[in-house]
């Protein structure tokens, strides 16, 4: 609710600023933890666009929980572009006719200029010696993770663990059993990514936090380096960060070219490098290589490989009565 309100305020401010000047503005509606990343992107994009076209632009950003933001846009928030952390959120907008049906084909790499993956944060020195997914089911380990019902972060964590079993030759039943064991070790199901990080670092809850690779950067920045060690599991999931032009808004505002230029910019070496600096995995091979220190090689699998698509995974695993509910309701 608050997030939506914030987005609404963003929208009102935008409307006010459009009236105030003829300068073109663009509203990027995005997810919570990408705030700093897009701040840097915007700072780089404005001069870039000026050089290309000679036009001054102003970029506004609104951040909140990914699906809360998608709902706000569907309900009428005038975003020019959406940059989300789960494809389901953009698919939802496509169903509503707010973004193009073939949005995923409009830009390279499934319209996801960047990705992230799930890994573990453990306390400094890794006292519980946690190395891989298997360790998270040990009885002496407490795991902090986001509730897959309320956060994309939590959905990816769940799917990554499921994929670990499947990729090691396990059956669905074995994966199900593995996840029940894992979630038995969860003392707090956080509502969202930030919530989980706070529980783990400020409340000292649990031995390991499953989170996005990109969250490591903000943890180090906010809580100081050396509070946590990063553990790369043997295998993890590719979490795509999809982007799309909001056709409804750009048609009305005449910002189609600007919106496209903005999203294209994310694919340029400059945009990719900014992503890498924020621990968001770039698609550009050269940039990825340059930041090899940040992005340790992990064997990755995609959602499509094991689950068909995120929406299908949603139906089977996370909707009410799905596999995730069974962990808690079937004794």
């Amino acid at each position, binding site marked *: 609710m608050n997030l939506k309100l914030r987005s609404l305020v963003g929208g009102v401010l935008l409307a006010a600023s459009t009236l105030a000047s003829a300068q073109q503005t663009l509203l990027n509606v995005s997810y919570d933890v990408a705030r700093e990343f897009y701040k840097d992107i915007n700072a780089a994009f404005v001069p870039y666009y000026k050089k290309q076209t000679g036009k001054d632009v102003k970029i506004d950003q609104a951040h909140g929980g990914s699906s809360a933001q998608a709902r706000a846009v569907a309900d009428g928030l005038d975003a020019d572009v959406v940059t989300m952390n789960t494809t389901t959120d953009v698919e939802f907008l496509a169903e509503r006719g707010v973004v193009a049906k073939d949005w995923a084909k409009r830009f390279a790499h499934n319209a996801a200029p960047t990705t992230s993956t799930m890994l573990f944060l453990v306390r400094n020195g890794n006292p519980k010696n946690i190395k891989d997914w298997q360790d998270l089911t040990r009885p002496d380990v407490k795991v902090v993770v986001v509730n897959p*019902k309320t956060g994309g972060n939590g959905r990816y964590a769940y799917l990554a663990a499921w994929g670990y079993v499947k990729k090691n030759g396990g059956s669905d039943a074995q994966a199900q059993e593995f996840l029940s064991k894992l979630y038995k070790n969860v*003392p707090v199901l956080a*509502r969202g990514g930030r919530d989980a990080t706070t529980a783990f670092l400020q409340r000292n809850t649990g031995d390991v936090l499953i989170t996005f690779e990109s969250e490591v950067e903000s943890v180090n920045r906010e809580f100081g380096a050396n509070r946590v060690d990063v553990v790369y599991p043997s295998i993890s999931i590719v979490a795509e960060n999809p982007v799309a032009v909001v056709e409804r808004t750009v048609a009305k505002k005449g910002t189609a070219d600007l919106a496209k230029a903005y999203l294209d910019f994310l694919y340029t070496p400059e945009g990719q490098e900014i992503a890498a600096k924020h621990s968001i995995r770039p698609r550009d091979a050269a940039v990825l290589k340059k930041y090899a220190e940040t992005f340790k090689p992990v064997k990755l699998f995609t959602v499509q490989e094991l689950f068909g698509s995120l929406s299908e995974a949603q139906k089977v695993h996370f909707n009410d009565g799905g596999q995730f509910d069974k962990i808690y309701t079937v004794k």
Partner: protein
Amino acid sequence: MSGALAAPLPGAAAAPSSRSTSKKVLPGFNITLGYTLLYLGLIVLIPLSALVFKTFTLSWEQFWAAISSPRVLASYRLTFGASFVAALVNVAFGLLVAWVLVRYSFPGKRIVDALVDLPFALPTAVAGISLTALLAGNGWIGQYLEPLGIQLAFNPNGVVIALIFIGLPFVVRTVQPVLEDTERELEEAAMSLGATRWQTFARVIFPSIAPALLTGFAMAFARAIGEYGSVIFIAGNMPMVSEITPLIIIGKLEQYDYAGATAVAVVMLVASFFLLLVINALQGWQRKRSGAS
């Protein structure tokens, strides 16, 4: 009818409760009544009916499935149970606070009086975060309680504590004016007739404040049922154990299940409306009894 419904609303609580109003007390009664109904319709009834209409997109089976899955049932138990306990605690301690504020004067009384309203003013998420910081295993208070085996954060205890926090002002602020109005002479008379302190309280003071206490209870209870912000940080949010119903609703919204979310919301709405009616009836009965004697 409208009087009976209006009593548990915050705005009505300040109004003197026992005065019988004649029709002509407001000039232009028809206009004011019309305005009142219009305003209530715009602000309360239209949003609420939108909520109900949204659930009509579900078939009866879907509606039933949405409101009766084991996780949702567990969350009703927690939400209504914890709200009830928290409201009870608030009745006891809120009465105490109101009593002290009305009957005694001490340095800093005005500050204490103002402090009571803080839970009204504070964004509830702030309350939730601070309570968690206090009571979690490494918190200021939690670190001493945890070794004793008392865990107050990340389980249903935390939910109750957060709900006590946000509910306190409702009881204090409804009881306070009534206590101020009760005449000390009545107590003195009781005592001069040989009543003990306890008898004075039970026979003289309590009957006059009972309706106000019930109102305070109803408001604290109703407020607690819908509370989200403060609870979410301290609850731990474990399915079947410490998930409150508002979280279930948010969870459904995150799945873009608007209809399912409103279905659960409607259940809560109906349940709390029913409870408020019961409490109102109790209150009316109380008032009649104490007024008659």
